[in-house]
């Protein structure tokens, strides 16, 4: 019974856990419960992925209503992989949350915090798993609303304005998406994605479809913070509680990228999106500018969290660049970078959370002398940073390898150079932190600082360790990413 209902359980397990979490009292129970649920969700996603890899796409009819009338949950290689990323990050971040959240958020808000975190997880998983366009919007809003709440719980009062800014931008983005979905419905009379994909080729000349395409493009790129529409992201990540930054940075934009992949490759189809409308001519320049400009901006930040947030925008540029190549290699690079970036950026933000816990600030000056005082945390940061730079034997290198290869395949030398220049800019901003941490002595009046507790170090190191391990043994990640890319492009492997 359970094996059969896994797609539903993936979403409804955290969904039912969220209100239950509100009922729990005490300082640790909500956390313990949420952690257990996140682990269960992770186990489910692993099972789903292995099912998909073994036996192909799974289709699950909600409430027994057969698609295309009812809501269908549809799991193929692409979203099984994204599900794995999201739930894995959730499962790693939650154990970390106990100490960090206990430190950063007042105790009476803990049940609400974990409820919101579980809802956010539910929303992200739901967006990924659903095969129904409107359902996607609903889950998108569930995850967005809960993440606005999570961000607003940050200690700094700027968290409030950042959250409101995100709320406004996010709502506009989601509304654009829902308009796009509505227009698609108008053209085809269906909301089921597979059904949409089957009916769209008959309507390619319709102006309504063109409008739907435009709204979807703007909506998704806003949600995933592509270059000119990224202004909400740095503040939101910089002022959110550490756990939230780690979780959202690793998952939220990834899921938005998934929406883009799903709509443009599966639903609208590559032929319409790229051959007829040449979306790549829009995506590639924007992505290239994102890589260069945002990496440069990151260099000038004095708040390390904000610096990494800008770096995230640049990394999203890489992903979009990979998508823009519209080739198996390019898509493989993009999908594998979804995973790789989630792992390394998650690890980096968690390391920052450790610094926040012990030092109370993540401004650059606060890092002075930390290399000696918090050796494990800072070493994790260095390794994560190296991965961001793309040093071999880290996941960052694997992503760059495939990206540059995809660029060279198309003879796009300029883009290959852009990608590498982006790495060099990463060297600069990462090394600013490293120099301060290792070569600047701590200020004389600094309070003594000890290493972060194990409950935070272990999750940090799990992510950092993964970013090394999957940089050496890539058969799993690249293998799945390649299959996913082939699925999206409709190439039968």
């Amino acid at each position: 019974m359970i094996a059969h209902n896994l797609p539903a359980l993936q979403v409804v397990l955290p969904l039912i856990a969220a209100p239950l979490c509100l009922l729990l009292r005490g300082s640790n129970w909500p956390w313990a419960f949420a952690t257990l649920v996140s682990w269960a969700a992770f186990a489910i996603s692993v099972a789903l992925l292995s099912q998909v890899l073994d036996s192909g796409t799974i289709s699950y009819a909600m409430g027994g209503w057969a698609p295309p009338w009812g809501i269908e949950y549809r799991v193929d290689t692409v979203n099984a992989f994204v599900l794995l990323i999201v739930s894995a990050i959730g499962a790693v971040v939650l154990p970390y949350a106990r100490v960090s959240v206990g430190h950063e958020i007042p105790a009476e808000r803990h049940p609400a915090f974990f409820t919101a975190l579980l809802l956010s997880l539910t929303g992200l998983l739901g967006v990924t798993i659903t095969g129904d366009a409107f359902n996607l919007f609903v889950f998108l809003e569930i995850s967005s609303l809960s993440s606005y709440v999570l961000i607003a719980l940050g200690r700094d009062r700027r968290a409030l304005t950042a959250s409101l800014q995100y709320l406004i931008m996010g709502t506009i983005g989601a509304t654009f998406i829902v308009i796009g979905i509505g227009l698609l419905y108008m053209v085809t009379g269906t909301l089921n994605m597979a059904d949409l994909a089957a009916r769209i080729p008959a309507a390619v000349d319709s102006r309504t479809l063109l409008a739907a395409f435009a709204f979807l493009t703007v909506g998704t790129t806003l949600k995933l913070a592509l270059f000119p529409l990224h202004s909400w992201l740095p503040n939101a990540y910089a002022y959110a509680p550490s756990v939230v930054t780690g979780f959202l940075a690793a998952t939220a934009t990834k899921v938005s990228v998934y929406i883009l992949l799903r709509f443009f490759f599966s639903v609208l189809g590559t032929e319409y999106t790229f051959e007829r409308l040449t979306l790549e001519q829009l995506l590639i320049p924007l992505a290239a500018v994102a890589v260069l400009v945002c990496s440069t901006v990151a260099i000038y930040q004095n708040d390390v969290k904000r610096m990494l947030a800008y770096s995230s925008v640049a990394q999203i540029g890489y992903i979009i660049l990979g998508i823009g190549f519209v080739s198996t290699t390019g898509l493989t690079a993009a999908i594998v970078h979804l995973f790789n970036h989630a792992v390394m950026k998650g690890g980096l933000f968690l390391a920052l959370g450790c610094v926040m816990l012990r030092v109370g600030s993540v401004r650059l000056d606060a890092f002075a002398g930390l290399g000696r005082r918090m050796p494990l945390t800072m070493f994790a940061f260095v390794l994560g940073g190296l991965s961001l730079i793309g040093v071999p034997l880290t996941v960052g290198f694997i992503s760059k390898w495939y990206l540059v290869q995809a660029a060279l395949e198309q003879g796009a030398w300029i883009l290959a150079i852009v990608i590498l220049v982006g790495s060099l800019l990463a060297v600069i901003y990462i090394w600013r932190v490293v120099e301060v941490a290792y070569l600047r002595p701590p200020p004389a009046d600094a309070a003594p600082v000890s290493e972060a507790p194990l409950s935070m170090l272990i999750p940090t190191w799990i992510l950092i360790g993964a970013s090394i391990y999957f940089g050496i043994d890539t058969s799993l990640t690249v293998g799945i990413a390649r299959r996913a890319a082939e699925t999206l492009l409709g190439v039968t492997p």
Partner: protein
Amino acid sequence: MDIPADIPGLYNYWIVVVLMMVGFYVVISRTNLVKKIVGLNIFQTSVFILYISMGKVKGGTAPILVDHPVTYSNPLPHVLILTAIVVGVATTALGAALIVRIKEAYGTVEEDEIQAMEPDE
């Protein structure tokens, strides 16, 4: 397509577009956060109308189960938009709650004044 005939014939879409642009303009141009949220609401409302008017079938009645077959309007967009309205309410409530707390933290709901209070970045 004959453009002049479109204007009255597709008047619902014109309303949608006008509402949308009004809402969007308010979000962009106002510095008062409350007005921004109101603008956002108008913006979302335009989408509700888009969906609802889309489901209308000429001469159709309300989609309620009756014994004899009649033409009825497409119920699906209504159901969908019910969800969207709930989402809109939640967004507005959350936005308003945030503004209340911003007011408590900064003593103002004017965006430019808030920005002036935060020195750098």
